[in-house]
């Protein structure tokens, strides 16, 4: 039997993830010991996941405003104007810990959660991405996690019916015990059709809609903020199971319901379910809220108030409805076969009151639950600067061709076909650029307008220099969008770090945030939504700092985007940007020489902007036939990827630079692109680049069935057939997944 008035012991407080001084704060706030239900509510509201207590101070420093921004951080998702009265609504969110424990369901419910965030605001989801980080391929559990996570992402998104158009997959031993699953979703709505969670009006019905409440993910929000230890197996039964079918029905029902004008406020039940959603609706609206748990549709018998308040059952919504339109609303619920119930009402008391079996189980000040949550200015130390490694200090490979083949076939650079073929990227019929290019592009509202999406971060750079790494993540997303001819308009971020109570981890966080902020300001690329995931550690070993950047760009005319594949033999190949042969923290240094060393390549934000604007202009004016940005693996990998995507070879001569060939080929200098142009347009393009102050170097021609690279002297440096490149590129992933580990 559930005892709401059990004495609150220090053990209970600790088990709820609350520190002694946080508990003192609770006592002061309410003037008495909390009931058991209240303790549960505080633990949900005041954990890292919901309260952002370690990160809030720093998040405030990010640029969140811009001409197009309609709603920034603070709502379920960011809302950005894309013209013609349309808005794009998007966000990215992590489901890291659940995905490590139960990869399929963890990833699936992660996708479900982010889709719900988007359609709660009245937007129909039109695109999804997923940014995945796994442990070392030779770590025993990695294969199991990869297989479950990918199937789970697909299982949910495919059934729901949203195209997955992009993402990332990387492997690193630092994710061995803690994978990252960051899910992104974007939707489209009309600017005047956006719904918020702020309740309005006193005495109005609070309606519960969607799946029934069970004991799913009990304390999941607490789990998501807790470090793993070796008995994390014990936490297993908290796994939530996703039901994409119910979510699809919920989507259609919500959008139809919103059309009736009955919805005054709406909030999905995500982490800490009923608690967070109810408190947020009331607190935002400056209202009180009273819940009667006897009315909550339950899946299991004898659920206590405590359990109902903390359950993380999926596919549920809470709404304040206009009573005058209740009948119309009810018709929609019945049509779609959804459970619904009036579970409470708004009040003017500013209290959050929870009743069960006629008894008051919780009675708390609603604003203070959020506003008075702890806020920490955690001590931090800056990461030590690493030395810059001169190109000359990095040995050449035994054989350039073999080095290129090794890189193109390595876990981080090989083909992601095994992954993306498990995701539906055709559904909705609007996909213009599928996964595999620099950014996914979808047509919007029948075109010609479209949106481009990309997810990026280079964690090894962030580890080596958090500030430069933070800048680089933003710059790379900006670059990927520019490469397809999209105007980057806004960003969502998903900040994955270790334990913020350790000053060096907090230092990574602070460094990355400063870098992200500076880059977003310089590129006029505001952050409109995001998510923080801390305590990503196993046995004291933190993940690499991984602030994933989800970038959204506006495409004026989807007919004019270009891909990265070489298009026609004879096209001239031009390298844009400055090459210094930067090999510190490069994939080349790691994969060929086994060294993860040195300072990462710095990002010159002014250059970045100039080069990106120039490339976007080339694409939108139809002057280039293919574009690819340079990132991991540098020029050589970019050329190889362009050859693979176009199934065409190229003859390239390395320009005179005074650098060893391997530095020119594999260096990871930032702000660079490769473009191809019809031979007749070459001179004009070079001239235009010069006028725009963008370094442009003609390096060769598209054609043949081989990728041939020569030195200026004419000496051959490497010749590889496109077929061989393809074999190596395609081989690793399926082979890795085929063998039982």
């Amino acid at each position, binding site marked *: 039997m559930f005892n709401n008035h059990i004495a609150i012991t220090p053990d209970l407080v600790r088990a709820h993830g609350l520190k002694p001084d946080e508990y003192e704060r609770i006592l002061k706030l309410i003037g008495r010991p909390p009931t058991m239900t209240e303790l549960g509510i505080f633990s949900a509201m005041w954990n890292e996941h919901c309260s952002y207590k370690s990160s809030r101070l720093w998040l405030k420093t990010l640029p969140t405003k811009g001409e197009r921004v309609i709603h920034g951080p603070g709502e379920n998702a960011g809302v950005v104007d894309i013209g013609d009265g349309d808005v794009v609504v998007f966000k990215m969110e992590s489901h890291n810990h659940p995905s490590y*424990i*139960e990869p*399929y*369901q963890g990833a699936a419910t992660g996708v479900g959660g982010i889709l719900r965030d988007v359609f709660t605001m009245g937007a129909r989801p039109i695109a999804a991405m997923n940014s995945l980080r796994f442990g070392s391929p030779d770590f025993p559990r990695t294969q199991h996690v990869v297989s479950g996570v990918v199937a789970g992402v697909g299982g949910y998104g495919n059934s729901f019916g949203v195209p997955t158009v992009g993402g990332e997959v990387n492997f690193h031993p630092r994710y061995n015990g803690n994978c990252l699953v960051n899910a992104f979703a974007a939707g489209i709505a009309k600017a005047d059709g956006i719904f918020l969670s702020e309740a309005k009006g006193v005495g109005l019905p609070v309606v519960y809609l969607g*799946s029934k409440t*069970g*004991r*799913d993910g009990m304390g999941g929000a607490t789990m998501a903020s807790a470090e793993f230890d070796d008995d994390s197996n014990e936490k*297993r*039964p908290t*796994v*939530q*199971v*996703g*039901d994409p*079918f*119910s979510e699809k029905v919920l989507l259609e029902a919500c959008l139809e319901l919103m059309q009736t004008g009955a919805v005054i406020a709406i909030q999905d039940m995500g982490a800490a379910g009923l608690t967070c959603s109810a408190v947020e609706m009331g607190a935002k609206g400056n209202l009180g809220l009273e819940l009667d748990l006897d009315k909550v549709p339950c*899946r*299991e018998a004898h659920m206590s108030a405590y359990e109902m308040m903390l359950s993380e*059952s*999926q596919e549920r919504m809470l709404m304040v409805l206009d009573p005058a339109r209740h009948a119309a609303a009810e018709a929609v619920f019945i049509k779609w*076969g959804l459970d619904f119930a009036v579970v409470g009402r708004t009040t003017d008391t500013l209290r959050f009151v929870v009743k069960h079996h006629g008894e008051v189980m919780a009675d708390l000040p609603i604003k203070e639950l959020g506003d008075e949550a702890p806020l920490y200015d955690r001590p931090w130390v800056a990461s030590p600067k690493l030395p810059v490694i001169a190109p000359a200090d990095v040995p050449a490979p035994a054989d350039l061709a073999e080095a290129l083949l090794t890189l193109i076939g390595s876990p981080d650079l090989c083909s992601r076909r095994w992954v993306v073929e498990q995701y539906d990227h055709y559904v909705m019929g609007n996909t213009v650029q599928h996964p595999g290019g620099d950014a996914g592009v979808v047509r919007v509202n029948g075109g010609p307008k479209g949106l481009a999406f990309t997810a990026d971060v280079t964690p090894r750079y962030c580890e080596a220099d958090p500030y430069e790494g933070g800048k680089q993540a933003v710059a790379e997303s900006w670059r990927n969008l520019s490469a397809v001819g999209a105007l980057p308009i806004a960003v969502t971020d998903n900040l994955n770090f270790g334990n913020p109570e350790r000053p060096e981890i907090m230092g990574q966080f602070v460094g990355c945030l400063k870098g992200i902020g500076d880059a977003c300001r310089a590129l006029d690329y505001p952050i409109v939504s995001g998510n923080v995931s801390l305590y990503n550690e196993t046995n004291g070993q933190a993940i690499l700092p991984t602030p994933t950047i989800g970038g959204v760009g506006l495409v004026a005319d989807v007919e004019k985007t270009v891909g990265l594949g070489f298009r026609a033999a004879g096209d001239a190949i031009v390298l844009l940007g400055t090459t210094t042969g930067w090999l510190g923290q490069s994939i080349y240094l790691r994969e060929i020489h086994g060294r993860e060393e040195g300072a990462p390549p710095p990002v010159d934000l002014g250059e970045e902007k100039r080069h990106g604007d120039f490339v976007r202009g080339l694409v939108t004016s139809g002057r280039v036939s293919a574009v690819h940005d340079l990132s991991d693996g540098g020029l050589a990998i970019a050329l190889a990827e362009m050859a693979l995507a176009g199934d065409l070879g190229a003859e390239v001569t390395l320009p005179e630079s005074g650098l060893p060939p391997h530095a020119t080929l594999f260096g990871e200098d930032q702000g660079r692109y490769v473009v191809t142009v019809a031979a007749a347009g070459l001179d004009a393009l070079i001239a235009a680049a010069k006028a725009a102050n963008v370094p442009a170097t003609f390096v060769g021609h598209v054609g043949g069935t081989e990728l041939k690279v020569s030195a200026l002297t004419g000496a051959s440096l490497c010749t590889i057939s496109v077929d061989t490149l393809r074999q190596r590129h395609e081989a690793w992933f399926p082979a890795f997944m085929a063998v039982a580990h």
Partner: protein
Amino acid sequence: MKARIIVTLKTGVLDPQGKAIEGALKSFGLAGIDGVRQGKCFELEVAETDPAAARAKLTEACEKLLANTVIENYHIDLA
């Protein structure tokens, strides 16, 4: 030796399939069927002749592959 393994969801774990099936049965006029939970069933042949050894092998198969022990229970019947 023939064996049958039944894998079912642990109590309290959501079973969307069972839920949908129950709804469908009701809408086809088959009232009075409730609490539907769907599980899996594997029928197979195990080479061992010693029941204890067979059971040990199948337990390993369940733990490693047939059941997701995070959310499922399994039950082995030897013929």
